[in-house]
């Protein structure tokens, strides 16, 4: 019997949702576990860094890495896994595009530390301690990973072979990716393993869209109970379905919530947020400046709306903080 392919799972700056996504495979997880030899999975199994280091380079068939690259530790681990792996899969929105933690790029380390360790209303830190890479107490030296100024998508740190999108990736997307790997049916390198068209294509409400889609007004999700049988965008809810890669099966739409774009842009689109903004600007039917003002009030957090999952991977990558960013 041939040796089973070795597979690693790793998490960087992550909420743990992507780990749940793996568990969401349910009984299929057993099939996968049967077919592969898991050599690293911090959430579930006790492997150490030395165990991975001990493997020959390229010994791991595929590493599935989720989370944003936020700390020096993340960077060390992903570089190690890159060396040891034949294929690297960026797993979930954070590894794919920077994800929600990537919105921290609107600040830098200094601002983040000041808030979380000093100025935040629930903080009690009279001595004003901040995390530092080295710390000594009672004669013991402690080491902490360094906190980078900028959060990065995985492919901004190492070369990535495939992307599994989603926040988190739905089970069928994960399963299809693993099956493609096991059966040797992976598409060209660099592919995003999901749909090739925007979400509207598979959206059950797309048929209800008017021929000419023009919005007079925008509404926020908490302001309305959407009609279940009409395109959300046509109802004035800012749905990013037209801009977002499909393949999820319109999960949010089926729950009457507009798409927020976790699958990211399509192949030929360089910047998700700019395209989203462009799409919205294309369909608003405003007469004067007041209309525009009124509509913009419905988007209180433009960056968090249009770059919710993709700020680090966007053209601007982060807020310019006058040289204090690196």
């Amino acid at each position, binding site marked *: 019997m041939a040796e089973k392919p070795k597979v690693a799972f790793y998490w960087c700056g992550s909420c743990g949702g992507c780990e749940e996504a793996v568990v969401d495979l349910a009984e299929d997880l057993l099939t996968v576990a049967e077919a592969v030899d898991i050599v690293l999975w911090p959430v579930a199994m006790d492997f150490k860094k030395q165990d991975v280091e001990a493997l020959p380079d390229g010994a791991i068939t595929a590493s599935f890495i989720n989370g944003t690259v936020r700390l020096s530790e993340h960077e060390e681990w992903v570089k190690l896994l890159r060396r040891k792996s034949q294929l690297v899969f960026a797993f979930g929105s954070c590894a794919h595009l920077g994800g929600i933690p990537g919105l921290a790029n609107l600040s830098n380390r200094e601002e983040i530390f000041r808030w979380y360790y000093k100025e935040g209303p629930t903080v009690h830190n009279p001595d004003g301690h901040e995390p530092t890479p080295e710390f000594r107490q009672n004669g013991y030296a402690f080491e902490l990973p360094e906190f980078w100024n900028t959060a990065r998508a995985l492919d901004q740190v190492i070369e990535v072979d495939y992307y599994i999108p989603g926040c988190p990736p739905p089970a069928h997307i994960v399963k299809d990716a693993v099956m493609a790997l096991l059966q040797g049916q992976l598409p060209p390198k660099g592919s995003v393993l999901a749909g090739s068209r*925007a979400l509207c294509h598979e959206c059950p409400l*797309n048929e209800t869209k008017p021929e000419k*889609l023009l919005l007079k007004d925008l509404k926020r999700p908490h302001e309305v109970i959407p009609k279940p049988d009409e395109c959300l965008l046509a109802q004035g809810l800012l749905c990013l379905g037209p*801009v977002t890669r499909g393949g999820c099966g319109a999960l949010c739409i089926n729950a009457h919530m507009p798409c927020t774009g976790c699958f990211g842009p399509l192949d030929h689109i360089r910047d998700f947020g700019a395209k989203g903004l462009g*799409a919205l600007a294309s369909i608003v039917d405003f007469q004067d400046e007041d209309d525009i003002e009124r509509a913009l009030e419905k988007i209180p957090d433009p960056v968090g709306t249009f770059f919710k999952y993709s700020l680090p991977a966007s053209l601007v990558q982060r807020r310019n903080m006058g040289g204090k960013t690196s």
Partner: protein
Amino acid sequence: MKGNGEVPRIGVYVCDCGTNIAGKVRVAEVVEFARDLPGVVVAREYKYMCSDPGQDLIKRDIQEYNLNRIVVASCSPLLHEHTFRKATAEGGLNPYLVHHVNIREDVSWVHEDSDEATRKAKAIVHGAVLRVAWQKPLEPQSVPVRDSALVVGGGIAGISAALTLAEAGKQVYLVEREPTIGGHMAKFDKTFPTLDCAACILTPKMTAVKDHPNITLITYAEVEEVDGYVGNFKVKVRKKPRYVHEDRCVGCLECIEACVFKEPRFPNEFDLGLSKRKPVYIPFPQAVPPVVTIDPDTCLYLRFGKCKKTCVEACGDRNAIDFDMKPETLELEVGTIILATGFKTFDPTRTPKYGYGRFPEVYTSLEIERLVNSSGPTGGEVVMRNGQKPKRVGIIHCVGSRDKNTNPWCSKVCCMYSLKLAHLIHERSGAEVYNFYIDMRTPGKGYEEFYNRLAKEGVHLIRGRVAEVTDAPLHPEEEGKLIIRVEDTNIGVVRRIPVDMVVLAVGLEPQPDADEVRRLFNISCSTEGWFLERHPKLAPVETFTDGVFVAGACQGPKDIPETVAQAQAAAANALALMDKGSVEMEPNVARVNEELCSGCHICIGLCPYGAISFNEEKKVAEVNEVLCKGCGTCTAACPSGALSQNLFSDHEVFSEIMGVLL
């Protein structure tokens, strides 16, 4: 270097344009720079690339060096892109494998510094070289051109254009918004400089329009909607109800006689209010079509629903009068359109110092045209509003022209018509006439001679811009007169000239609704509001919208001979298009990649030309390539990157930007 599959072999041609480019840009340096760019096989400088030997260079090099891409850096592509595409095609390459960039208007003409200009020219050439490698061979689409034309406006321009087209066998629809054709010219008595009778030369043309089997005359109507594209315009015309069936009315005018209003009581628009008409009226005896119109604002029955309707009685069996007539919308399909919507005269109340509207004896020139007209309100007698004949008349030139407070342009016709009016007023009334002018502008065949003739006839010609017209006398001889205060710049003296009658030579302005009209037909206008021709010298009657032409004063002030010449030129251009029978469309159209389109509908509402629709079967957007004008709006908006545009692919655009920035 990346490219479109095949290995690029690029020829770069940089034009001196005499000294136009070479006077500022160091062309030889640009050529040296281009020679080292990736894919460039040959780079040359030439004095005039657009000349035959210049084009031959391209053709020869394509053969000799086996070139597959061409870059020409010279003037505006608007001027010569077509030339170089043609040369490229004659050299054996697809014409869309040439890229033409502008280093004249964009560089040498706008930069002072030679170093900067040379640097910019290099950047532009660099962009062109990187871009052209991605260009693909394209085939222009050919669409048929309908053998019919729409002429908008029934003045002398529209009449001339319509007759020329109809004589050539084309079906013509002539749309006029007034109840009759004839325009401004129909109001004139004589025309300068020959003093031949306007009606004698115009009315036969008007009748010819009415009688021509190829002309459908649609009066009292306005164009409401224009759809389609060159060769295949769909036009909606809204015909106002005249409450008289044109086909039944024989023009006997018995209804006018019979109207319950025994006397004409309402201002006659055609006579600019100098005469009165009844609710049922004909603008002037030779109106075409020769039928009456009922004015709903003054007709008792149409206003109050109550009247003895003596007009209907008088009409009798002819049954021409129909008070239930409703507006009607006609749908026309035409291949070409000629706009001849004319001008309006300046409203002199905007220049209050001349007293128009304040002093009854201040007239506009157009009012005087009616007064001296033998079919006008006074039968050609120069009788003032106070019933007297003037003994002295002052004609003030340039009212609403050459004036930074109103209109800065010269209206071109006023000097000549003012001399004509001076002659006619003197001839009809024996009055002494003063003309006040800034500069006497009489260029034109026989025009200066006319001026000399007037000078000999004893008209007083005073060079000076009139300061004001006042009725406040300083001397006994000014009592009861209008006094024209002016600096006579020939003798350097401020003069006060008492007159009985003042004529304001009002200038020409674009029609008040010119902007709506140009939007309707999708053409541009100049800052003043005149319709914009495609090129001021070489395409004076074409517009930037293929198949739409302009003629007459809607394009700028013009006298009658010029207007007629331009109208016939517009007709000739339209004929050339229609007789060719088909037109090649620029293949810069947008396309949908059906594999990528999600059917999100975003592009559909955006397209200004209605070229995109949703294919319900395939669930994707579809571009009608004939309607697409290649504006790029949809391509930029498509959130899936499914739309792309020929000649403007992402590769082409981004590599050009890269080249410029590197």
